């Protein structure tokens, strides 16, 4: 254990990263919103923090050989800037973010996952039977120790409590903390998981394919009109939408939208929303809010999207979980925004 | 024993004592009298070292009281405190035992000698029947006796009392005065008491010090201090209200 381990913010983090997901957390203040937070944080949908994002700097110190045998030990700089050494190919991996669970299964390391975080929108089905060692309430360190975990992948920005990360590290268990606030960071996170789990090549193949698909999809809508779009994260009490510069924001732009963004608080006032007058409303909270609900809200009836009936639910999980299905998220956004485009 | 030289002291930024000088020798029994606001309690506080005079000095046993450690002062001079509100349930015995604070072992607490002193004080003040009771449930008069027992247990050569009889009925007033007299004559304890009741003062104290507006205006035997014209002048009442022992 290294008591002097230092956590630097990654270069890319640049302050605004810390503001991520503020809206959801504030939701704690109302009971319904609390449920949302639970949903969000433990699950897919909101996977707030599990935004895995690797700092783009996942660096193997071991000489990269071309042989298929992955070279261990590897040293990885995680998204908090912590240098983490993984001594040998991990056999009992604990995934503390839904995105990492998906990634590990997608790159063929699923059989070595020993336990996972609670996931309210579980994926893939193969992971269903895994023991759950973390919930929104906290991380069961004892279980992780007793499973003899040799690699833990945790979420940054407080998704995994920092105290739990510190404790696991003090017990000599390598912990990689990931979060993503852009597509690049999401892909770097997948590469980092690949490197740490000994599936670097599979991860690299996955991210290359994902990048190609991102480029292809983005090209499809490049010349389409860009509707002014309000993406609703939650409007149970306060109204929450996407912060400028977030992963949400980037995906919406890639999908050919002109998103109404807010600051790192995630909150936007109804006045601003009405003044902006969006042409399209996307319901990230479509699981419990219907277009009819939105139309029935007092003072929303004059908004262009409501008048025109352009209110569409989208699968929030796909958009916010920086795992292998992020391309599906972009696809879902394009399908909602530009139904005329052939995917 | 007690020596006050040219003391001027403030109470709430107002001169409560002006150029007060007095001496009380070992074994004396002295009552301080005077109208409200004369500076009696301030004088006691100055003598006990709780209030630092603006000018002048106070000596206790030949040493300046402001240079003595509080524990040393407490072993030389015991004060019957004003009635406090106790924050926790506290038995009478526990209150009396507080009088041994200046003598007990600082960490381990009371030694056998301390326990004996507590028992003796309880016996002497006559509060044995109250022992196990919560001091907060006692009448004002009973509490006053308990606090007197505490000061007696402190076993200091000087005992200072501030209005020790205000809450007592006549019989208890007399009993307390007799006890004070007994402590003085039998044990040699120097007594310094602030009294409102001029009759009790004159009856039980061979020497009175009369304060008025912060100054000592008379010091001597009762008959001399409580001259009718002085009573009229200082207290503003008909001297007939004050009955003196012939």
């Amino acid at each position, binding site marked *: 254990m290294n008591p002097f381990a*230092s956590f630097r913010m990654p270069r890319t983090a640049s302050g605004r990263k810390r503001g991520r997901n503020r809206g959801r957390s504030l939701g704690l203040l109302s009971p319904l919103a609390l449920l949302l937070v639970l949903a969000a944080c433990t699950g897919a949908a909101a996977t707030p923090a599990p935004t895995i994002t690797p700092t783009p700097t996942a660096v193997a110190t071991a000489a990269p050989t071309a042989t298929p045998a992955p070279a261990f030990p590897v040293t990885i700089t995680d998204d908090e800037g912590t240098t983490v050494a993984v001594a040998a190919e991990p056999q009992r991996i604990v995934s503390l973010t839904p995105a990492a669970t998906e990634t590990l299964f997608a790159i063929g390391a699923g059989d070595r996952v020993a336990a996972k975080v609670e996931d309210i929108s579980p994926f893939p089905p193969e992971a269903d039977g895994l023991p759950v060692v973390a919930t929104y309430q906290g991380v069961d360190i004892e279980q992780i120790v007793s499973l003899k975990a040799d690699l833990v992948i945790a979420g940054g920005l407080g998704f995994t409590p920092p105290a739990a990360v510190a404790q696991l590290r003090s017990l000599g268990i390598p912990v990689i903390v990931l979060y993503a606030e852009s597509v690049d960071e999401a892909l770097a996170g997948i590469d980092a998981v690949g490197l740490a789990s000994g599936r670097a090549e599979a991860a690299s193949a996955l991210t290359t394919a994902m990048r190609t698909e991102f480029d292809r999809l983005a090209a499809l809508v490049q010349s389409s009109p860009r509707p002014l779009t309000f993406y609703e994260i939650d409007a149970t009490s306060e109204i929450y939408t996407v912060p400028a510069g977030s992963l949400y924001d980037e995906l919406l732009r890639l999908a050919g939208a002109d998103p109404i963004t807010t600051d790192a608080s995630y909150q936007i006032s109804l006045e601003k929303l009405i003044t902006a007058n969006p042409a399209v409303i996307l319901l990230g909270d479509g699981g419990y809010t219907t277009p009819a609900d939105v139309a029935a809200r007092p003072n929303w009836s004059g908004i262009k999207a409501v008048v025109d009936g352009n209110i569409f639910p989208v699968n929030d999980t796909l958009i916010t979980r920086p795992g292998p299905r992020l391309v599906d998220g972009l696809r879902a956004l394009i399908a909602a925004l530009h139904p005329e485009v052939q995917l | 024993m007690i020596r006050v030289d040219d003391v001027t002291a403030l109470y709430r930024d107002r001169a409560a004592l002006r150029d007060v000088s007095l001496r009380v020798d070992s074994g004396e029994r002295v009552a301080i009298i005077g109208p409200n606001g004369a500076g009696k309690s301030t004088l006691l506080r100055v003598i006990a070292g709780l209030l630092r005079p603006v000018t002048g000095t106070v000596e206790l046993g030949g040493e300046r009281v402001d240079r003595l450690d509080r524990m040393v002062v407490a072993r030389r001079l015991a004060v019957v405190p004003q009635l406090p509100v106790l924050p926790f349930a506290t038995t009478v015995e526990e209150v009396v035992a507080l009088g041994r604070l200046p003598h007990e072992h600082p960490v381990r607490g009371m030694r056998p000698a301390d326990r004996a002193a507590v028992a003796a004080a309880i016996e002497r003040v006559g509060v044995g029947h109250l022992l196990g009771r919560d001091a907060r449930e006692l009448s004002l008069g009973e509490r006053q006796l308990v606090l007197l027992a505490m000061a007696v247990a402190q076993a200091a050569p000087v005992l200072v009392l501030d209005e020790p009889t205000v809450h007592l009925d006549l019989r208890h007033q007399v009993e307390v005065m007799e006890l004070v007299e007994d402590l003085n004559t039998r044990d040699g304890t120097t007594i310094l008491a602030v009294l409102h009741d001029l009759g009790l003062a004159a009856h039980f104290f061979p020497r009175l010090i009369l304060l008025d507006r912060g100054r000592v205006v008379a010091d001597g035997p009762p008959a001399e201090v409580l001259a009718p014209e002085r009573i009229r002048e200082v207290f503003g009442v008909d001297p007939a209200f004050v009955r003196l022992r012939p």
Partner: protein
Amino acid sequence: MVAASGLLLLAIALVAGIAAGSVAIAPTDTLGILARRVLGLELAPTWTVAAETIVMDLRLPRVLTAMVVGGGLAVAGAAFQGLLRNPLADPYVLGTASGAALGAAIAVLIPVRALILQFGLLHALAFIGALGAVFVVYRLSRVGSSAPMTSLLLTGYAVSSLLAAGLAMAMYLSGTGLRQIFAYLLGGFEAATWGRLAVAAPLILVAGLVILLRARSLNGMLLGEEAAAHLGIDVRRERALLLTMASLATAAAVAISGLIGFVGLVAPHVVRLLVGPNARLVLPLAALLGASLMVGADLLARLLGEIPVGVVTAVVGAPFFLALLRRAHSGYEL
């Protein structure tokens, strides 16, 4: 007699605290691990390495931290009650809690992540905030006051309110950090490590010991400051010393475990009910009781699925306290 019961209670709490957890470890293995690692007996391990790590590096530091924090808060609570002569005083009465909370919240807002001796910015600012709040309260209360203890209490109340407003603002601004602040406010021992215990425990133990050795001063204050002075207590010096030590113990406790209420308030009262107000008895026994209660509360919190310890102490403590007051109405009132 009472002391022996207290020690027994603490021993039971210790064993139970180490024996229970989310992973089942046979009691014999638990004892075996402790015998081998703590007592140094040459036993052939019948247990896994993981079990040994869980007992030695997770549960033992956790239980010991709970003990030290519980004992420290109980002693600090007894000291504050005695000094302020107020039975409703607890270790947080002079702003320690709100100061620590604000410090922790500010730490969450600062985008710097550094660990020194396993302590993050949150712990450091919580500690500084707690001490800073008491210092400010103490200084403000001394301005021309004839009733210093009342003034201290009221100033503590005012400063706490102000800090609480700051905390609300910090929470509002905290974004993702809100959960972290919330977890801190509720308190807990799940993050306990040997390293943290090694830093906090000496502070709490030394401060507690100093208070224990000044029991005489606390006894003197029973009759008020003026009477204490007549009984030989240097009131200003003792008050400053005791306030400092009690605040130090509280700040260290709060920095490692967050805000855990009731133990510091209840433990001294229970002990006074049993042995009276003599601080020489109250302080050490309250330490034993506070330590046992805290380990018990933490155990309960763990068995209920890692709910916050602060919730357990409040949910168990409040009704218990009320029952105590009703039952003891004749002999003991606040």
